[in-house]
């Protein structure tokens, strides 16, 4: 096994690997990519989330404000997508036409009578959202929307938005993005909202057209803790109003604990956890370590234990919510403040990349 690893890291395609070795760490392949077929993929994304993360700043995003408003006011479901084969950002119109035809055809399957005209016609549109990608390597975000007329509407009523989804990649791991073969576009995070049957139709169309796979993206305990810490860190700039956490403890019957903390107290606690790095200049981006997040959560749990004699580490963290957004363990997320969209999506892109099977 060691020999195979050593020989493959020297293959010519991994000439990029030579550059990376400047940090004197050696990258190894995943088990699956030890097979010859996938050896061109080279590198897997890491096995765990980043331990150092930049403290979030409010960005002035140069995104179409309509799209931003759409993103901010809804609660979204998360999924991960494997890289798309031969996806061209220039051909979005023809993709949208295909998608509309596909959705209409699937809806009409099984109906004996031809539906007249486009009475319930679905019209899909795909647009590129400019300005959301942070790094140079990220492919542009794509927004898919499906409009349709409600059932009992007059002929000249405008169509309503019934389903929308975003395919995005924000600050994706550059080595992974470089290691993909030429035809593949990596947009690992799929954020969608709408009726379940439409979601499955869109997913099956994308799977068929671009030869990729979808899967549910659940947020692990560490990701939820990171979100709690990152949102707390933003309290200096925009008031988070509360930090509410929902824990489930395994007892019979299961006990649900809602732990709500006042923003000033949690800000002081966060400050005392980070007292080491407070001396930085105001303009510098500060880094948050995983240990700081862990000790922040540990102090919250021990405070709870001191009052209620219940140890929260016996349970599972299900939901974290602040005024800036809320995230649930089963992959539902709501971003309420448009300024921190980029940071949250960066974290979610990493989770999606980790969960992807390739």
């Amino acid at each position: 096994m060691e020999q195979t690893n050593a020989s493959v890291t020297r293959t010519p395609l991994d000439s990029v690997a030579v550059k990376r070795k400047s940090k004197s760490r050696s990258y190894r392949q995943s088990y699956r990519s030890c097979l010859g077929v996938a050896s061109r993929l080279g590198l897997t994304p890491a096995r765990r989330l980043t331990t150092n993360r930049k403290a979030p700043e409010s960005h002035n995003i140069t995104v179409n404000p309509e799209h931003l408003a759409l993103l901010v006011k809804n609660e979204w479901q998360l999924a991960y997508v494997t890289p798309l084969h031969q996806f061209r950002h220039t051909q979005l119109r023809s993709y949208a036409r295909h998608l509309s035809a596909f959705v209409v055809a699937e809806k009409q399957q099984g109906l004996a009578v031809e539906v007249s005209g486009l009475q319930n016609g679905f019209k899909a549109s795909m647009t590129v959202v400019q300005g959301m990608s942070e790094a140079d390597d990220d492919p542009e975000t794509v927004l898919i929307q499906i409009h349709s007329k409600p059932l009992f509407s007059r002929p000249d009523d405008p169509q309503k938005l019934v389903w929308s989804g975003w395919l995005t990649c924000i600050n994706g791991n550059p080595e992974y993005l470089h290691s993909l073969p030429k035809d593949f576009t990596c947009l690992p995070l799929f954020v969608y909202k709408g009726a379940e049957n439409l979601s499955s139709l869109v997913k099956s169309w994308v799977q068929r057209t671009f030869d990729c796979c979808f899967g549910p993206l659940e947020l692990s305990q560490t990701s939820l803790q990171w979100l709690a810490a990152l949102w707390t860190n933003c309290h200096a700039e925009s008031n988070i109003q509360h930090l509410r956490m929902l824990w489930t403890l395994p007892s019979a019957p299961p006990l649900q604990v809602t732990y709500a903390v006042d923003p000033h107290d949690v800000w002081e606690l966060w400050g005392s956890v980070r007292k080491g790095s407070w001396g930085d200049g105001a303009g510098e981006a500060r880094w948050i370590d995983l240990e700081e997040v862990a000790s922040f959560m540990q102090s919250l749990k021990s405070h709870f234990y001191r009052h209620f004699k219940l140890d929260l580490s016996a349970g599972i963290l299900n939901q974290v919510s602040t005024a800036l957004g809320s995230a649930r363990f089963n992959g539902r997320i709501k971003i309420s403040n448009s300024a921190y969209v980029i940071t949250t999506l960066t974290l979610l892109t990493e989770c999606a990349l980790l969960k992807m099977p390739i």
Partner: protein
Amino acid sequence: MSLLKPFSKLPGLNTANILLVENQEQLQHMLADVLVKETPLTVTVRLAKSLPLPVDESRPRIDLVVFIINLTSELSFQSAEDSLKYLDPGYFLGKVCFMVTNARHASVPTERLDALRRLAASLHCPLLFAEDQTPEGVIGAAERLLTILKVSAGVVPMTTALYLSNLTRCTLPPDIDQPSFD
């Protein structure tokens, strides 16, 4: 300090004693029900929530100590780690085993499983993964434990626990130190 010692008593004829340590006390009952049905070997199952055990002179010699850890709960992992110090070092020559449930649960961060793997690899102990939601899963887990228990109790000829532990001990995957996105 009351260390549990492996060789302080004589073994019984055709008997094996196993100690199941679990903080949440769920899987150990189900495993115990399956383990005691074994014939012809007489298996005695003792259950504990954590170590150290209270002083008990009538306790027979324990052949295998199994730590059952539920990965979704951090407390379970912590308590198993804390219990390790109450075992005599003689146990770590093949008489300790880790059994993990819920390893594939989505809420488990990968760091926890990696930390557990490192712990098991540093102690040279086997790491077994069990599925505790179905009776077939529990029976499968019990069978695997029985294989190790029979060797630890000395019932299998030509093999000792130390020899077996060389084959079954947990090894770290080669990319466990792979750095994260940076």
